[in-house]
């Protein structure tokens, strides 16, 4: 490069390099305040991102841990509980009720069979007193199914007449059903079965909460873009006469307000698909002029997620999404420092993000949820200045309610 330079260029470089024009307009005190404010902003952003990452990691890790724990512990737990609380353990669970039924009177067997069938199917809400189940079992011994049937033999007069064959048959058949369901005896049939997540369809309403940027001076230079004075080509002085510095323009972004509806379908494999419609409103104020810009975007998020853990009431899940959003309404003051753009010319705002969430079933079909979400907003040509053009990474807390069908 150097060898291409002619002599006049070398002289030019030397002279221009040594040139020092006017001093900066801003005093050092102003500059220092601006630097420290930016430092705080950067630190705050780091904290937000760290908090978001911690939340997401904790939720995902917690979900995986609970899921593994549930999967690993369920069979052992159920048998352990059955051994402790139900002393009647037959060597052949499926054969035991049949043997017993063969020895009980026909009418009692019918009753027992009816209970057993009901237990195996829907789980009727019949609460079994624990003593009614465990006491006869304890008398019978742990491995002697016939023992229990002895006490139920018809015609045998005992002092415990109330522990009739009907009771025994009922308790044994119920115990067998309890063991099959892997539950303790006390509340074996106490709760109705809730709708499983697999094959479930949900409609949700939600809102998002994020942080605004109260004093964003970094964007100040953008405001000057349309106002860069063009130097006439025949002006030999170029831009020799610089304008005196004026007050610095600052953008203040309020926290965006977001709300919408979502539709979610949970597949039996644990994967779920989610979509919906989300509206987001941006409000930007410019100081010192006080000019304002308000924009309303409508977006259609499309996402896939996975249920990490779920039981009757609580579910933990993680998901990713992509959302194109279109500006559907907007207005700005006449003195807003960018040229007014036709709404139809504003490009789509594309974003993608990851989230981890937890929901809690508050009543039957209704659940509430919270989803910490970390989003990235892609930059677009000619996009109006919003908080997302300045902070492409944005952390929000998405909360709402779902109606599960």
């Amino acid at each position, binding site marked *: 490069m150097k060898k291409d330079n002619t002599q006049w260029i070398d002289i030019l470089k030397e002279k221009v390099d*040594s040139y*020092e024009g006017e001093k900066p307009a801003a005093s050092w005190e102003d500059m220092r305040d601006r630097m420290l404010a930016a*430092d705080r902003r950067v630190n705050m952003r780091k904290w937000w991102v760290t908090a978001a990452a911690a939340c997401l990691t904790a939720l995902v890790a917690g979900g995986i841990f609970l899921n593994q724990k549930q999967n690993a512990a369920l069979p052992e737990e159920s048998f352990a509980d059955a051994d402790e609380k139900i002393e009647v353990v037959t060597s052949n669970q499926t054969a035991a009720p049949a043997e017993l039924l063969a020895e009980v009177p026909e009418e009692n067997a019918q009753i027992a069979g009816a209970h057993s069938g009901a237990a195996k199917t829907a789980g009727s809400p019949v609460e079994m007193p624990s003593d009614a189940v465990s006491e006869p079992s304890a008398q019978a011994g742990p491995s002697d199914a016939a023992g229990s049937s002895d006490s139920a033999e018809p015609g045998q007069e005992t002092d415990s007449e109330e522990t009739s064959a009907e009771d025994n048959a009922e308790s044994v058949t119920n115990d067998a059903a309890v063991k099959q369901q892997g539950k303790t005896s006390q509340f074996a049939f106490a709760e109705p079965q809730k709708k499983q997540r697999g094959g479930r369809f949900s409609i949700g309403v939600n809102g998002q909460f994020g942080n605004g940027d109260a004093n964003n001076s970094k964007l100040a230079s953008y405001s000057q873009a349309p106002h860069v004075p063009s130097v006439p080509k025949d002006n*030999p002085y170029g*831009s020799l006469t610089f304008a005196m510095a004026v007050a610095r323009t600052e953008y203040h972004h309020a926290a965006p307000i977001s709300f919408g509806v979502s539709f979610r379908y949970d597949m039996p494999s644990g994967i779920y698909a989610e979509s919906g419609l989300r509206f987001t409103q941006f409000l930007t104020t410019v100081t010192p002029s006080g000019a304002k810009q308000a924009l309303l975007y409508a977006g259609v998020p499309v996402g896939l997620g996975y249920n990490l853990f779920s039981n009757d009431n609580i579910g933990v899940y993680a998901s990713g999404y992509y959302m194109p959003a279109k500006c559907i309404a907007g207005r700005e003051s006449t003195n807003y420092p960018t040229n007014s753009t036709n709404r139809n010319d504003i490009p789509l705002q594309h974003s993608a993000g990851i989230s981890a969430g937890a929901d809690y079933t508050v009543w039957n079909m209704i659940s509430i949820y919270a989803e910490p979400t970390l989003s990235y907003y892609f930059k677009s040509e000619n996009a109006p200045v919003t908080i997302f053009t300045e902070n492409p990474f944005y952390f929000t807390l998405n909360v709402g309610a779902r109606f599960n069908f």
Partner: protein
Amino acid sequence: MKDISALEKAYKNDGAALLAVCRRYVCDEQTAQDMLQDGFVTAWCNFDKFEDRGKGSLKAWLSRIMANTCLMYLRKNDLLKESREITEAEYRLVDPGGLAEMVQKMDSGTLHSLVAGLPPDERTVLNLAVFEEFTHKEISRMLGISESNSATRLHRAKKHLAEKIEQYEKR
């Protein structure tokens, strides 16, 4: 550990020179002031990356930050697009005869203003090639243009600048 006093000293002593760097890239005074402030904010946020290599190293580091800040501004505002295609007639060597003497006689402020008055695409390449001493390969990477395009822009910038200098001397 961040030392704000070092930046205070640089701002007070070298602020004018750093502002001149910004003016070389953006011709608007207000924008140049904004670039200086943004540059200092960037410098402060990344001050832990600065390696003190003796006298003048902080000023050189800050100059590079100012140049980068201005480049980002020009890129974001789409001011680096080629203003027009160069014609064959224009693509002839600038006659340096007498130019060196003219430049020698002119004061540095005027020369600085003439450079700042060039079209943004030419001015940027001239700044990077002549004042920052980047190669065309490096410039092509920084601006997302081809090496030949960088060379063309530089040639055109020199020609325009020479014309401006001659015009200034004739008046």
